[in-house]
Every structure is written in C-alpha cells, then in structure tokens.
C-alpha cells in the first residue's frame, strides 16, 4: 500500500458516519497516526495496547492454531474497533448507533 492509499483509507474511515476518531499504534504501543488530541491518543494507545495483547493471547491459548483478527467493544455511547496486526494496530472509535 502506498502512502497515498493509506491516507485515502484513513480519510474514508474518518468520514464514515459515526466515526469519532482513529489511531494507529506500532508494536510497541507508540501512536504513529491519530485523529484525536495528544492526551486522548496516549490514553487509548496505552490501554488498548495491553488489552489487545491480552485478547490475542486469549485466542491463542484456546487454540494455538487460531489467531485474533479483530475485536470490538461496545458501550451505550461508543464502540471501539481494534484491528491488531503484526506491526501495527488500528483503533477506531465510533458512536454506537451509527445508523
């Protein structure tokens, strides 16, 4: 994927109805892209990184041949979508009722 394609994808996600923000963290949990302000970004990065690691190991402990692809957490107001990958993790925050 080229930088332009990445930017386009991020733009598309951000403009999607209900999306409140996104951030991308690297494998050390350091945010490398974010549409949220610095302190919120840091908070999300730290909290979601450790939860994502725990979710991945949960799946692997149930079945070592299986792998976590995606997870989502829903509250009354928001939904947090997390797409963990080898090098990066993408986190999107959206309003629960996006329809």
């Amino acid at each position, binding site marked *: 994927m080229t930088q332009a394609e990445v930017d386009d994808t991020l733009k598309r996600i951000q403009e999607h109805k209900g999306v409140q923000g996104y951030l991308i963290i690297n494998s050390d949990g350091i945010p490398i892209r974010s549409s949220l302000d610095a302190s919120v970004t840091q908070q999300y990065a730290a*909290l979601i990184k450790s939860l994502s690691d725990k*979710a991945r190991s949960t799946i692997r402990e149930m079945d070592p041949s299986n792998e976590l692809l*995606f*997870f*989502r*957490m*829903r*509250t009354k107001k928001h939904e*947090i979508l997390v797409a963990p990958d080898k090098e990066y993790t993408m986190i999107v925050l959206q309003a629960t009722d996006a329809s």
Partner: protein
Amino acid sequence: MTSQNEVDDMIKRIQASKGVQGLIIIDSDGIPIRTSMDNDTTLHYAALISQLTIHAKRVVRELDSSQELEQLRLRSHKHEIIVAPESKYIMIVVQVPEAL
C-alpha cells in the same frame, strides 16, 4: 422478571441459531452455570474469557467513567466469540459467522 422457562427458551433459541457452536453462561466468580459445550472447553473458555472481560471492563471505564462494557466481540480465523457481561453473569457465545 424473566422466568426460568423464558431463560431456557432464549438459550435454546441462541443455540439453534445458524452458526452457533456453543453457549456458556458464567457467574461473577467465573464459574460456568450453563453450557452447551464439553467440560474441558467450557472451563477453558470460562477462565480465559472472565479474565479478559475484567480487563476490558476496566479499560472501558478508564477511557470514559460514565460508560460500561455491554458487549465484546472477538473475531478470529476460526470463529467469533461474543461476550455479553451483565452485573451477575457473563454470557459467551461462540459462532461461525456466515462470512467465514
């Protein structure tokens, strides 16, 4: 107040849904009180998912203290695990989404 029959019917309905591989209900101590899966699998899920749910609930509250986790969905290669925590219980459903 939901009667025992209504609870059983609801559980049966979920289990009969297309793609559902199993359903477990655990109490606030992580002890399975209902399950459609074998003993080992049930205990394995109960232990791992209750730990993960505690962690997820804490993260959600730290991000916004006015919010509470209502649902957690874990999508993996082989299946999807849906976790619905309540005050006294956690319901876990394992399903194969149609898209897989």
